[in-house]
């Protein structure tokens, strides 16, 4: 079974759990589609609901991963399917944060973050930290998946 090891201070882990719980609650009803949608109305419904269900399942996997006992300290065992869901959930939350709390941050700053980005964003700083931590988790998950 694949393993993912995320090294984080316990205070950061607690912070991430708290923040993610809040973000998930705001994401529950989100069924945003980026790109193509079928033309027929009934197909659109099917399409959007399917993606929303998939997102909720992925978010659940991410939350369980972060809440697992070894998260932040030791390797966490995860099934291959859950590893895929974990990667998808990281993108899902990051996209949501970019389209909400980080809406006024420039693309350049998001693609090339600096320490100033975290320190001088005022109320956005916590969100920015979550955004960056999820990138770290996703990169580590991609590395684990690439070893399969």
């Amino acid at each position: 079974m694949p393993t993912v090891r995320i090294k984080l201070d316990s205070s950061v882990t607690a912070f991430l759990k708290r923040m993610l719980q809040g973000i998930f609650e705001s994401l529950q009803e989100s069924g945003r589609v980026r790109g193509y949608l079928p033309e027929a109305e009934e197909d659109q419904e099917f399409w959007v609901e399917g993606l929303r269900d998939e997102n909720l399942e992925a978010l659940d996997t991410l939350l369980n991963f972060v809440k697992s006992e070894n998260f932040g300290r030791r390797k966490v065992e995860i099934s291959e399917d859950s590893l895929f869901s974990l990667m998808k959930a990281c993108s899902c939350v990051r996209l949501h944060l970019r389209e909400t709390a980080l809406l006024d941050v420039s693309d350049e700053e998001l693609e090339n973050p600096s320490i100033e980005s975290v320190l001088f964003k005022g109320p956005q700083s916590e969100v920015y930290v979550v955004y960056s931590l999820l990138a770290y988790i996703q990169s580590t998950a991609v590395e684990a998946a690439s070893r399969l």
Partner: protein
Amino acid sequence: MSGYTLQDSPLAVPVLEPEVDKATPWNVIVMNDPVNLMNYVVYVFQTVFGYTKQKATRHMLEVHEQGKSLVWSGDFEKAEAFVYTLQQWQLTATLESAEGE
């Protein structure tokens, strides 16, 4: 793509149905976004299309540098299924008729 057709039986309730030319080759296009990580996008292309790392990286760089990349071309049903899968992976994917190129 063309417009709509109306069922013209006097007993039938007119139903608007989208008309899609499924015979035409269709292009799956992935658009750039500032969020998804480069190594993640490469991994998605490898996983979804079975591309080599080299080919997946080429498409990822095209998305990053040119704003979009044509990642697959073929029949409508398969192209639509690929778009759905790419959206499941949180990429911005669209479908375009190859005729319009």
